[in-house]
């Protein structure tokens, strides 16, 4: 699943806001706490973050407002200049890029969706979606064709000539998504794309999003403050607090083995049986007898089987290949909430 080079790789990244962050950071011990730094008049938006994002992976960054998640994702695309550390995109240090190369990178590789959509109010749906193509100088005919294609993809066919304010919130975000996909980016950033929508629409949009992702299989960095949304969508979740990453792991692991008290609080009210899947429970060292189950099945989905079965260990396969087995008792504990 992971290729040689991670798509995005960041090491010890700092983003500090304040009067002279570089100088301040140079003379400050790295273990100084967020609150102490605030006392000094500096805000650590991103605090010593190291993280890799792999090809085709959906990484969800989760945190409450002010936790630094939006700042971090803006560092990935160099919308923010970082204060210290390195960020590499496909092996290239983006901080060393000249302005022109950076623009080229964004024009060819990156797409981003915003919480309040960030649509240009004076442009129609078609012109908004075609905007990135126009910026990179594609001719009118090709960009129109491509824009219509993505508009159709997000289900807005027939509204090409509408203006943003004539659309509902959900529709506006579809435009935002279409625009970010217009250039066929390899890396897709989504900054709380569904937070501004009401709950019913949000659910619908999440489904839509999963459908798209299955078709497109992009490398995705998705930001949310909604833990349920993170669990629903993520391959891996990074939980942030005060600019630092508390834990970065698969949803199963986070639910089963929260690394800090802060993370545990989030997982408390979660129905773990819906989150934990066979694949997450499976231990490679174990082997089981009899019919295997698919790694993607949640504990809840396996409930009947877990209760009726009698085996101690149940084998798990992913894409037809055995990857280990899990303990039935452990799965039952999760199902019954005894953990």
């Amino acid at each position: 699943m992971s290729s040689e080079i991670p798509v995005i790789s960041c090491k010890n990244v700092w983003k500090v806001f304040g009067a002279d962050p570089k100088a301040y950071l140079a003379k400050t011990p790295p273990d100084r706490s967020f609150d102490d730094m605030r006392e000094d008049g500096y805000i650590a938006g991103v605090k010593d973050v190291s993280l890799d994002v792999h090809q085709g992976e959906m990484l969800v960054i989760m945190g409450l407002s002010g936790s630094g998640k939006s700042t971090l994702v803006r560092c990935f695309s160099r919308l923010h200049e970082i204060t210290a550390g390195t960020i590499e995109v496909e092996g290239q240090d983006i901080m060393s890029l000249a302005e022109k190369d950076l623009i080229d990178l964004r024009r060819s590789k990156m797409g981003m969706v915003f919480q309040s959509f960030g649509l240009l109010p004076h442009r129609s749906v078609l012109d908004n979606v075609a905007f990135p193509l126009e910026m990179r100088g594609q001719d009118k005919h090709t960009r129109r064709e491509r824009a219509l294609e993505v508009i159709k993809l997000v289900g807005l066919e027939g509204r090409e000539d509408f203006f943003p304010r004539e659309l509902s919130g959900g529709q506006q975000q579809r435009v935002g998504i279409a625009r970010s996909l217009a250039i066929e980016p390899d890396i897709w950033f989504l900054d709380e794309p569904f937070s501004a929508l009401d709950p019913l629409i949000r659910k619908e949009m999440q489904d839509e999003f999963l459908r798209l992702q299955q078709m497109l299989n992009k490398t995705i960095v998705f930001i949310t403050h909604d833990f349920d949304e993170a669990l629903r969508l993520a391959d891996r979740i990074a939980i942030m607090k005060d600019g630092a990453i508390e834990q970065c792991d698969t949803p199963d692991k986070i639910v089963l083995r929260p690394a800090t008290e802060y993370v545990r609080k989030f997982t408390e009210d979660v129905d773990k049986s819906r989150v934990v899947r066979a694949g997450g429970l499976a231990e490679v060292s174990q082997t089981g007898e009899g019919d295997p189950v698919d790694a993607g099945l949640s504990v809840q989905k396996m409930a009947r089987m877990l209760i009726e079965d009698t085996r101690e260990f149940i084998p798990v396969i992913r894409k037809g290949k055995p990857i280990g087995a899990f303990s039935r008792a452990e799965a039952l504990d999760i199902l019954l909430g005894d953990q």
Partner: protein
Amino acid sequence: MADAPYVTANPFNRSRAALLFLGCAVVLTMLQYAALLPSWLHRLPETMIPPFAAWLDVVFNFIKDDLGLLKLTRFLTSGLENVLDASGNIFFGKRRWPNLGPMPWTAVAGVAAVIGYYLGGWRLAALAGGTFVWTALIGQWKIAMETVSVLVVAAPLAFIIGLSWGIAAWKYEWINKAIKPVLSVLQTLPFFTYLLPAVIFFKVGPTAGAMATIVYAIPPMILMTTLGLQKVSPEVVEAGKMSGCSRFQMLRHVYLPSARSDILVGVNQVIMLCLAMVVLTAFIGMPGLGAKLLAMMGSFKLGRSFEIGITIVLLAVTLDRMSKAWVIKQPVHFEKGTSWLNRHKTLVLAVCLFVGFTLLSKVIPLVGSIGRGQDFSQGRELDRAIKGFLAIDGVQSVTYGIRYVLNVWVLNPFRDFMLSIPTPAVILIIVAFAISLGGRREGIIAGVFFGLVALSGWWDRSIITLYSVLAAVSIAMLIGIPLGVWASRSEKWSRRILIACDTAQTFPSFIYLIPAIMLFGITATAVVGSITIFAMVPLTRYTIEGLRTVPLEMTEAADMAGATRMQKLMNVELPLALPTMAVGFNQAIMFAFFMVIIAAFIGTQDLGQELQRTLAGTDLGKNFVLGICVSLMALTFDVVIMKWATQKKQALGLT
């Protein structure tokens, strides 16, 4: 300033410092009355006054001749002149390239109506078309077009220059910091100070008129552009960046379109200020409505002047409404399969009307232009009506009574009192006022500014100017605020009074002067009265606005607490509206400083009269010194009151 440590943000210390200054002022004044004060403390001796005017003249002459600025501006003038000639040809048939004009009045009115319809429906169409029809029928077509032909050049130039500076100020903080004070001074500088340099550098006539108009109209455009660009949502900016915009693409496709509304508000202000200059630039040879108005007033034709005033108001209201409609106009999509004709039906209609009327005017001359003798001017009848009104005994005795009471008992004693206070005492009083309302910084500013006024050598005239402003604003408050309070009680009356405010503000202020003189003679009452009319406008407007924007929960809470109407007004509504009303008060003072200069045409002994005198000569230095005196006094009030309003707003949590 030994007591500076007292002056802190702490209100108690602040008021103590203010009291201390006030006390000193009273002591000084008492000493003066007791004839114990040395005369050099009463008025600065002549010998101590630096010859600012002479110094400035040296500087101006150096810039003008030695640095060759005059050559440059004269070169620019010839370029501007060509543009003005071309637009003059198109609008009123000046015999210059491209020799196409003039456009027939019917064609202009038709196109104006179509644009009005496109922007704001039938009502705006009627207003726009009606304005031009009125202008033609009343026999002012040619002079109105002379005015318009300059405005269509000046307004876009002001727009472009203002926009560029606005962008620069937004992009580079140091430019922003550098031009802010310059803009403040420009906005308070009396217009006479714009006029003289305009004549010297840009040749008497439409070119100087256009340049003075442009300079006058630029400041709000710069401010609105900067403000609008700063307000663009960060997500839109990031969306632009992530779409791979280069810097220029960001500005062109993201920032400017997103700041559209604020920029258009700037455009609206540019248009309004351009129209405000129509009459004033007539002093430096700008032809058109203003020049005609002055000529009419010079030969005592009140009716005709009044008609020209109406034309100016109509033009201003039309352009104001149209540009405001443009601000809120949002793009709308067409249904699929709409034909080209339908998509562009307003454009097609406008072109058809224009071509149609132009052709028709070749056959029927009346469609092309209306000459003297064919118009519907009622000038004579109006004159007769005005004279008839004045001849009524009741009017005469009432105005005589008012004139007697105000002049003999109020205004002249007040003026003499202000003149009797020693210079340092006046400065101390102003500083005390600034400290108690604003704070330490404002106190220092007030002291420095009024100190400079004292050093300018024009102290007595400045004090007379200040007295006229204070007297007029006080009277305006007595009338304007109750009027606003009363009007704010009903939606209908609020709207009516606000329309009256708009009209009073755009009506050329010169026209007030003649009735004021006829009613009250060449006296302080006429001067103060005409300033009062002008200063009342913002007071009433902001009172209405402040009261009508008091949050509904607050008034409901007051109702539920069992407050009577009066209790509610005094305890809830007025305190909450006060910061907004303060903005109106501030504007009233600014308007008064503007009008006091115009009131010099009635006959005063203030700075305005001296400024008017410099206009006839080439006294740039003196002209500038006088202008700065007005500006410094106005700025002091501006700084203090705005500071107070901001503090108050923050305290009330209204920002």
